[in-house]
């Protein structure tokens, strides 16, 4: 088992870092670069940049986002939002991303997953899923920044996506994200149990200890954190310390 990764998730609109609740609301938190650099220096393992409104607005500004990413960051970056073709993915990888995350376009055309995986390798192709609970044990896939229903079952869709070549899953709980009520453990568990690729749990982190539950009970391989970091409720170091003290495998980071 790989070390658990502590990932900072930045939702981006235009040139701003934003943070919503339940994928709604565009409250500006500040400069994406400044936040990203701070997280890098604090020892974050990876960064995720999501242009959360790209599909909703029918546009693609990712090149700008990635180009504007801080020049002094040397950890992996996953970039998603509005990636609709292999060309889009090519461009994003060329300008600095390590992995691409796709949601809306993959639902519309699952073949895109395979095309990207074959061209760049599965490890580059992150299937991003917005999951909304619709029953005690089921969740529905949403697209367009939590706006459009698809009728797809999350677990079925994840299995299909992995079979088509996705190398990693970014699983966002629409119900929990921005609420600070903790991760949707049942959701993460249901997905982790079914796939042999790494699962990144996203949405709802309230306190540093939430990492422990989502990994130990949910089976997550990584956690994506947004609200807790952007609102400065905890630093990466606090979360890493909690994980290390509890015996959770995380990379050891030396603070300069």
């Amino acid at each position: 088992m790989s070390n658990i990764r502590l990932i900072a998730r930045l939702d981006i609109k235009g040139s701003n870092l934003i943070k919503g609740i339940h994928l709604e609301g565009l409250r500006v938190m500040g400069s994406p670069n400044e936040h990203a650099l701070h997280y890098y220096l604090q020892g974050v393992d990876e960064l995720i940049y999501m242009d959360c409104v790209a599909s909703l607005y029918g546009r693609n500004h990712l090149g700008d986002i990635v180009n504007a990413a801080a020049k002094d960051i040397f950890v992996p970056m996953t970039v998603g939002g509005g990636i609709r073709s292999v060309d889009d993915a090519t461009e994003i990888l060329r300008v600095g991303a390590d992995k691409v995350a796709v949601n809306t376009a993959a639902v519309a055309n699952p073949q895109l997953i395979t095309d990207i995986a074959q061209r760049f390798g599965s490890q580059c192709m992150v299937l991003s899923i917005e999951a909304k609970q619709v029953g005690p044990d089921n969740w529905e896939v949403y697209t367009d920044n939590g706006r459009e229903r698809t009728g797809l079952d999350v677990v079925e869709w994840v299995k299909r996506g992995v079979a088509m070549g996705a190398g990693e899953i970014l699983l966002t709980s629409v119900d929990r994200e921005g609420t600070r009520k903790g991760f949707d453990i049942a959701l993460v568990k249901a997905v982790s149990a079914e796939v042999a690729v790494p699962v990144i749990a996203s949405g709802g982190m309230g306190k540093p200890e939430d990492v422990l539950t989502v990994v130990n009970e949910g089976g997550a391989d990584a956690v994506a954190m947004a609200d807790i970091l952007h609102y400065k409720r905890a630093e990466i170091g606090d979360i890493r310390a909690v994980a290390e003290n509890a015996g959770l495998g995380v990379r050891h980071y030396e603070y300069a």
Partner: protein
Amino acid sequence: MSTPEVTVIDYGVGNLLSVQRGLEHCGAKVILTANPEKILTAKRVVLPGVGAFTNAMPALESLGLVAVIRELAQRKTPLLGICLGMQLLLEESDEFGVTAGLGLIPGRVIAVPDRTLSGVAQKTPHIGWSALQASNETDGWQKTLLQDNNPGEAVYFVHSFMAVPTDPMHRIADCIYGGHSIAAMIRRGHIMGCQFHPEKSGEVGLKLLRRFILQ
């Protein structure tokens, strides 16, 4: 004293900007090119790579770069293959059917095991930070790119396939995944490879890049 140059091969497959930024951050002047002349006369060369072996080799072929890279090996130009770039140095790969590589380091590329040594299923691709340790046969890292690093330092891996050099002396550093040793850093003469991404491994990786610039 002039700025050391590093030539990065741009063959249409790879995260060039990160490699470029990493090297520049470490004080190099970076030349991105697919021009055979420029590559042949380079002081030191990086072969990056993201994606599939089956795309990368044809890309190099079509640009006439396979012969160029083999010639670099003849000239003993320091050559660093990163991630897929390291895998290309080997003789052949199993990814999407058997494909021939550059053949500069004997060995093959096979899939990362999907079961641990004790038989439990494990996730692939291998994604994340793993600690480096000295490979069994190696003589310590003093004469390698890892001379400024210490065993136990973690670096970032993201790969589904791994290189298995035939000659254990070509393995410098390994990481452990599910009990299996994965070749993390290999070397044969001036030809070096790291399976992990030094440009994505924070300060730990940058130390390696700085060392490469001094080759």
